[in-house]
């Protein structure tokens, strides 16, 4: 072939031919994989929403989690209002408090019910509304005989309202509560504020427990895995023993022991504030580090046989440095996944503990204690149970989706099915 037929390419053309792609760091690669996973992104967004709800929410919401509005106890999120006059709308709560409301559902004022206005014989109560100067504005008589009278019972209503000699039986409208969007609890505290606060407490518990767990587990597991031999045998026997008892029992038992103990009152409550927050965190940590320790050990055992560790050893790098610089960074993927999964477990366990009455004590609240409070009045005020329960379920779903996605993204080998 004639040599002259060949030309030199220009510099730019040369570059075009080469496969150039920006090299990605490990974390960029993880983020790229995570973005592709729709469920994980849904989880991530939900987690961010939950965190914003718990942090920024209380700043926007005008009510505080522990302020009690005693006039408005157990007001549901949805109100059945009666129209008594053109601008006179009232709502009767399940506790038989008569409340003046606006047409679109904002609470205005509670009617007074004096002792002498309760006619217990005829079961007719007379509610009175006063203005600022203590002048009587409206009088409403409520007839409760619809619950007792054999003929009136057939109408299937609980009471009728009489205002200016006209009897009202029909509900005018069903409107959403504009003052307390999610209603109030038995002490007249805003459910939304309590929900935000409770979500925050649950998140604090979960994150603190997960982070401290991470450190204990990594320390214990890497020491055990790295030194091997007798150290490993003894350390792993301890882990085995802890692991062979149902963890929940442990948690419950520890809670019982720590509750109201010297340690709780003088140490934990000083750090985390009263109400048993610290106790729950300590309990969760002292139980769940085991799983983390096992995982780290297994990782370290596998990694320490690698050539680069041998190379580091031959060059005389100290054990501490090898653990810090070589083993931990390489084992980080599965460790982070375990940590991410630890958060829903902690939320779950905390909710469970609070639900059986061992958790956060009033006036502080967590999602579990809110559900627990609501469970006692489940029949009359279902919203008090349903709202925190759904929040827990939503939170669990969000963290699980995110955790699953992280697992696939951080360590594709672990991908299931």
């Amino acid at each position: 072939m004639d040599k002259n037929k060949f030309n030199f390419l220009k510099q730019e053309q040369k570059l075009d031919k080469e496969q150039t792609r920006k090299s990605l760091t490990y974390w960029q690669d993880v983020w790229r994989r995570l973005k592709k996973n729709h469920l994980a992104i849904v989880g991530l967004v939900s987690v961010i929403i939950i965190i914003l709800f718990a942090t920024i929410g209380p700043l926007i919401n005008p009510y505080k989690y522990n302020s009690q509005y005693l006039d408005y106890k157990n007001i549901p999120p949805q109100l059945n209002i009666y129209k008594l006059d053109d601008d006179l709308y009232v709502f009767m709560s399940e506790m038989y408090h008569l409340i003046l409301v606006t047409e679109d559902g904002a609470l205005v004022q509670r009617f007074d019910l004096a002792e002498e206005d309760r006619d217990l014989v005829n079961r007719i109560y007379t509610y009175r509304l006063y203005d600022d100067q203590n002048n009587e504005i409206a009088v409403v008589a409520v007839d409760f005989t619809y619950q007792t009278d054999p003929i009136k019972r057939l109408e299937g209503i609980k009471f009728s309202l009489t205002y200016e000699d006209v009897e009202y039986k029909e509900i005018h409208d069903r409107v959403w509560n504009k003052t307390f969007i999610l209603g109030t609890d038995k002490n007249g505290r805003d459910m939304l504020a309590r929900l935000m606060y409770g979500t925050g407490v649950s998140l604090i518990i979960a994150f603190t427990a997960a982070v401290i767990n991470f450190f204990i587990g990594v320390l214990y597991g890497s020491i055990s895995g790295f030194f091997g031999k007798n150290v490993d045998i003894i350390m792993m026997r301890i882990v085995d023993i802890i692991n062979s008892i149902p963890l929940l029992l442990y948690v419950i038992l520890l809670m019982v022991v720590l509750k109201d103990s010297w340690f709780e009152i003088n140490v934990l409550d000083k750090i985390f504030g009263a109400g048993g927050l610290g106790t729950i965190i300590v309990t969760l940590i002292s139980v769940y580090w085991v799983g983390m320790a096992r995982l780290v050990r297994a990782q370290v055992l596998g990694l320490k046989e690698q050539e680069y560790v041998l190379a580091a050893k031959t060059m005389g790098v100290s054990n501490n440095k090898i653990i810090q610089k070589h083993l931990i960074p390489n084992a980080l993927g599965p460790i982070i996944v375990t940590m991410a999964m630890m958060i829903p477990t902690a939320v779950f366990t905390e909710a469970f503990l609070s639900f059986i009455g061992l958790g956060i004590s009033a006036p502080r609240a967590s999602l579990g204690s809110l559900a627990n409070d609501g469970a006692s009045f489940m029949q009359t005020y279902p919203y008090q149970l349903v709202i925190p329960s759904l929040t827990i379920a939503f939170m669990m779903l969000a963290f699980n989706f995110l955790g699953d996605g992280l697992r696939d993204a951080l360590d594709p080998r672990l991908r299931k099915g």
Partner: protein
Amino acid sequence: MNRYIIKKTLFSILTLLIVVTLVFFMLRAIPGGPFTREKPLPEATRERLEEAYGLNEPLLIQYFTYMGNLFTGDLGPSFRKPAYTVNELLATGIPQTAKIGLIAVIFIIVLGIPLGVISALKSNSAIDYGVMIIATIGITVPSFVIGSLFILLAQKVSWIPVGGLTTPITYVGPVVALAGYSLAFVSRLTRSSMLEVLRQDYIRTARAKGLSESKVIFKHALKNSLIPVITYIGPMIAALMTGSFVVERIFVINGIGKYFTESITARDYTLVIGVTLFYAVFYIIMVLLVDIAYSFIDPRIRMTK
């Protein structure tokens, strides 16, 4: 083989001893004894009570007395319900708890495993997605939420009586609430393990030599894919038979779970230890059984040990 079983058994017994010791000393570390009340008892009464329960002895002697009694199966009197011993309370509670637990276990095995297998065989189909969505919800929604929502629903329909275990229909709620999580978990586990096995070479070999599809699945795939499921089911049975605190509270069932939560709030320490021990023993025995069963199913395990 025998050595393996003996070793495992000895380790289980050691674990139990440690658990008992731990629980014993933990409860002794609690400030105030069982007779500390809000209104203090007269000094003389308290001393006589402590003498009657042997609480005035040195700690070590108390410990050995308790351990001695334990070996004869005596868990001591309940501190807060003086008319009963812990054994009697356990004896009334266990059958209630066991009934619910047993039905839940059967329900999980009969429903969870086939669901997992079906969604693995039809993977990425509508059935698969449906099962997996329900399973994810089952794993993420706590049992007390399921239980409470069930009760609310039951009241709306008002043909299911709520509370206690009277007619067969009253079992539905507790069983669903109790089984929810594990049912979801078992079907997910079965699915992923089945998918794993179906990719193995011996499945291809089995198909290549012309075995019928049902033989491939039931004889080769299913058997091997059940190994991780069995590992989970052992402790799960223990957890279900015992760990129904919440379900029992919601559905007002007088099982040991209810006694346990009650004894915690009442600070009835002997009852707490008693129930904990019962749970721990049951759990450890189940794990031991699974270990042994495992070595029969999977020969690789006993070879390496």
